[in-house]
């Protein structure tokens, strides 16, 4: 529901302001971005921070990222978050950083230990959708934007239901833990 409530606004202005903020946040969940970065376009670093939030809080972006996860064979190496030849992503250990920009960079540019670069091969928009989905696997997307069901054989609790965020821990190999 994205309509505003004038009755309540009149009765309690402070409450209304809070409610509006909440509703505005909730609206992001349903928002469709009709002007995504054009295919092949490179987004400037300073623009990225604001883009991150808009993808992560948007159910459509996260759900699309989830579909791409299988389309682009991410599942082949990382399974459905538990990992295989690639590292687990539902845990709290991030070899190259778990903030959205680091995850984006990992997907776009690849990493030397076996992560291939997807940048330049898939549209910029999809890289951000994948980033948002990886964040949701780790429990960093908002609960209302993260998917809550699987289309195929369920192998772990749905992204929106599992609270996978754990306190910061040190990793024996010196990997960083984010955020």
């Amino acid at each position: 529901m994205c309509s505003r409530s004038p009755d309540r606004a009149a009765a309690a202005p402070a409450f209304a302001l809070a409610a509006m903020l909440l509703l505005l946040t909730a609206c992001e969940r349903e928002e469709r971005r009709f002007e995504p970065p054009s295919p092949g376009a490179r987004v400037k670093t300073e623009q990225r921070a604001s883009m991150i939030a808009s993808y992560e809080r948007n159910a459509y972006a996260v759900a699309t990222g989830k579909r791409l996860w299988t389309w682009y064979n991410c599942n082949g190496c990382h399974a459905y978050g538990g990992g295989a030849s690639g590292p687990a992503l539902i845990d709290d250990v991030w070899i190259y950083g778990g903030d959205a920009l680091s995850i984006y960079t990992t997907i776009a540019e690849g990493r030397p230990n076996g992560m291939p670069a997807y940048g330049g091969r898939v549209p910029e928009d999809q890289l951000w959708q994948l980033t948002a989905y990886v964040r949701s696997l780790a429990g960093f997307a908002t609960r209302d934007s993260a998917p809550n069901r699987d289309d195929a054989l369920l192998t772990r609790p749905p992204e929106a239901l599992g609270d996978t965020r754990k306190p910061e821990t040190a990793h024996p190999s010196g990997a960083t833990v984010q955020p």
Partner: protein
Amino acid sequence: MPAHDYASTRYSPLSEISTANVGSLRLAFTFSTGVLRGHEAAPIVAAGMMYIATPYPNIVYALNLAAPGAPLAWKFEAKPDAFAQGVACCDVVNRGAVYADGRLFVNALDNSTIALEAKSGKVLWRYRSGDVRAGETRIMAPLVVKDRVLIGNAGSEFGVRGWLAALDTSSGREAWRAYSTGPDRDVLIGADYRPFYAKEKGADLGVSTWPRDAWKRGGGTAGSWISYDPDLDLIYYGTAKPAPGNAEQRPGDNKFTSGLFARAARNGEARWFYQLTPHDEFHYDAGNENILIDLALPGGVRKTLVHPDSNGYVYVMDRTTGEVISATPFVHVTSSRGVELDTGVLRYTPDRQQRTGIVVRDICPASAGGKNWQPSAYSPRTRLVYIPHQNLCQDEEAIQVSYIAGTPYMGAIVKMMPGPGGHRGILTAWDPVAARAAWTIREDLPVWSGALATAGDVVFYGTMDGWFKAVDAKDGKALWQFKTGSGIVGQPIAYRGPDGKQYVAVLSGVGGWAGAVVARDLDVRDGSAAHGFANAVPDLPLRTTKGGMLYVFALP
């Protein structure tokens, strides 16, 4: 060589350590490899040294057995391309080096084969024969036959095209290469090819049993065990599963995947082929070891090949002709209903077959197989084959998959689980003549280590929670055990030291496909992690921890 001999018996003729005294076996020395991944290698003992090949980053250590405590004589670091780690399907293991004529040959994960001077560790040559960016890796132990080193690629999961090649031992130059898919000239099928069964005959089956061009990324890699019969001058090896994992995307028998090849060692020409799991829908592979033994069967002594396959059957075959003499389940099987011996056909169970988008339940054995890479041993004294293996079933859903070079070409969601009885591992002593188990030992965790049989009638194997065990070869009675630091997935060996005493050695260090959840820090809350193995061993991270260490035992 890791398999002890060309026949791959893993039988040591040493008898100093016997059923009578093995109970007093003591630790002689240890050595830390400094590597934390799955240690699947067999230590190799030759010329007064012990050679250890570690998992990635593929270090070779030479220990001087003549000096007290076996100090390090030299160390070689292969420094393979780090990218290989991400495309090694299951763990970054290495199955051991091989020694021949003063040289040591070892593979590295990035498809390098390296020849070292055994005395000094000096590099004689290095040859890289695969592309990690396409998903090719190398984990096998090479085999040296005369002046050739035999190697094969791995990476069926990534849709690479399988091959086996022979390199010149003195230069590393490729003498021949035999592909597992494609036209006959690539597969080295010519005038000498005489398969036993009609289903293996025809022109260019490596093309015609696939959808158009699918053979080019059809898997069937040959990176596992190789055996050799010097009298017949034939090598024997199995090919891996076809790609992709979603079988509906590759209608046909998908030759020459998931089957056994016999080839002339000198030129690689195929003599026979037998496809154990045609159109493999279960990711079974046929890379398990082939034990070449002559068996007194009804009707006379025959030159046989004994192959306990992933698909759940022990195959006893005539290794001259490729005829299946018997094929008997050694584990619970629901995916098929037996092998027709007159046609060689494996009869599948209709309701266990894949359909895209449908969850198929209770597939036994699981895709890790009734048995996987872990090599069996054969004792000519008991005439039993000691098979270390697992008891796992799985649920699976096939999903549509696209080929993207360097990414897995799978198309299957898998969740494995314990088979009937709830125990996940078994050591089976198999009578290949009677085609039945003589005795079995149940283990809670999959038995992912190799087996060793000795003339002292002792069988050694290890468990994934770190116990190194000795049992009576005749009846399986427990005789001795020792708790090592990490889970054991390596290959035990017996050797005579420079002091004349018998020693038993094994590498501890959990990993491999079964131990990947520990070795690779996977998250077992996702049952599909490690290609579904996580669902079968969610307790493993609490049962063992990483750590590569050599343990050597002797009598006091």
